[in-house]
């Protein structure tokens, strides 16, 4: 009550303080935000947080040091498999399969397996990350979309192309045959090349053509040879040897 209040205020009997403040503000902790003294407002305005100056907004450019995601166990397994494939197989063709059903894939795989070509599929992300580390980095642009790999130890390109012709949805993108990157046209051209033995035979015959011809001429009757040589001298003296010599060759 007022009596108790007065008792605390009156230190001596009959003493009242000179100034009694009637107005009082709110307490320190209020439900509303208390109005701040002007000096405190100024202090808060001066001491505001100023962020560090960034030359470029944070999301504008891709970060220089790209955060390389750690490969999980499955990815490592797939990469090992890929490495083995690239080491063992001479022919690796990248084919896009668009809208082929499981039956068609089954038939195609069977046809290819007869010639020793295996069809493998890996996730594009895994292949791209594997290729970026290996020598075959230029193959990376081939792996876009639903791709499959046709791998074989021996480069059986003709059979592969014939099998692909049968299934129209499979598009050949390119490949790596005998450590050479080839485009689709390159692979077609490669298929048209004759086999190694044929070329070797042609090369050998071309080199030994002169000697074999002389040997065949010497094996004939010596009168024949002497007649040929006389005609040759005549041509030399006449001066139109180019036309007569092949004619003489044809005659023999």
């Amino acid at each position: 009550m007022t009596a108790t209040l007065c008792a605390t205020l009156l230190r001596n009997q009959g003493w009242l303080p000179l100034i009694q403040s009637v107005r009082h503000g709110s307490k320190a902790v209020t439900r509303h935000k208390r109005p701040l003294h002007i000096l405190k407002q100024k202090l808060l305005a001066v001491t505001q947080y100023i962020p560090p100056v960034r030359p470029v907004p944070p999301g504008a450019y891709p970060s220089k040091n790209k955060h390389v995601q750690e490969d999980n166990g499955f990815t490592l397994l797939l990469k090992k498999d890929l490495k083995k494939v690239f080491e063992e197989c001479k022919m690796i063709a990248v084919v896009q399969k668009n809208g082929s059903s499981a039956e068609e894939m089954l038939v195609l795989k069977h046809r290819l397996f007869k010639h020793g070509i295996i069809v493998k599929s890996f996730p594009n992300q895994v292949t791209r990350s594997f290729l970026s580390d290996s020598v075959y980095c230029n193959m990376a642009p081939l792996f876009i979309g639903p791709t499959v790999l046709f791998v074989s130890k021996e480069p059986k390109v003709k059979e592969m192309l014939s099998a692909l012709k049968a299934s129209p949805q499979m598009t050949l993108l390119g490949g790596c045959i005998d450590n050479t990157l080839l485009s689709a046209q390159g692979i077609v051209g490669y298929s048209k090349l004759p086999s190694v033995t044929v070329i070797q035979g042609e090369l050998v015959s071309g080199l030994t053509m002169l000697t074999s011809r002389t040997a065949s001429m010497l094996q004939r009757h010596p009168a024949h040879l002497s007649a040929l040589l006389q005609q040759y001298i005549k041509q030399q003296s006449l001066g139109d040897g180019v036309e007569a010599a092949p004619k003489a060759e044809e005659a023999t």
Partner: protein
Amino acid sequence: MISLVKAAVGGMTGICRAHSHQLAPLQSCLKVCAAGLKTYQITPDYSNVVLPEKPKLKFLNKVPNLKKAKKESKKLRDIQGPARAANSFTSGQYAIVALGGGYLHWGHLEMMRLTINRKMDARTTFARWRINAPYKPITRKGLGQRMGGGKGAIDHYVTPVRYGRLIVELGGKVELGEVEHILIEVAKKLPFPAKVMSREGLEEMQRKQKEMEESNQNPWTFKRIVEGNMLGIRKVLSPFDLRNHGRFTGKFHFPERV
């Protein structure tokens, strides 16, 4: 298994039967050739999580068990400033963190207890209180009373909460996404702003505050000016401002202040 495969395949085409010795490519043929292989996220390992016997929130009393209840002064400073106690995780993974000061009374606690107990799965989650039952008496005078006549009688009890205090902790064999919706529902009904955080979330918040302090380009900081009493500014500030460097005012916290 192989016989089953043979039977299934034999039904489809006659080609397969002819090449019985080449079973390997056929078994792989039966695989569906998907456009890409999905890489799965490894599920978190909950083997070291121990679920306690009583997973649900226990009942908290409305009134503390005192022989003689004493009236207490208002002491609003128990709302002011940052929390020094119960501001870090103990047993749980996810918690409601108070972002301001306030009083929680029995109604709030009952709401929290009932909502969480109803919505959480007792087999996989457990919940723990991080606040005490109400212990601070709040007095009220009767309706229509004039000023004076002594302090009012004790009306009810409350628990004071400061900024940064954990209210309820949840843990168990769950991820944040499974538990978030329950805790957000509760956090919205509290009398102070509150946020649902995991352990990493709380660390992230503290880290960001430190980063702000370090990367501040302003050479003039509140702390520097007030500690040096520059321009006699302590005339208009309280010792509370000196301690809290202008980040708190009453029960409010300013996240953008450094």
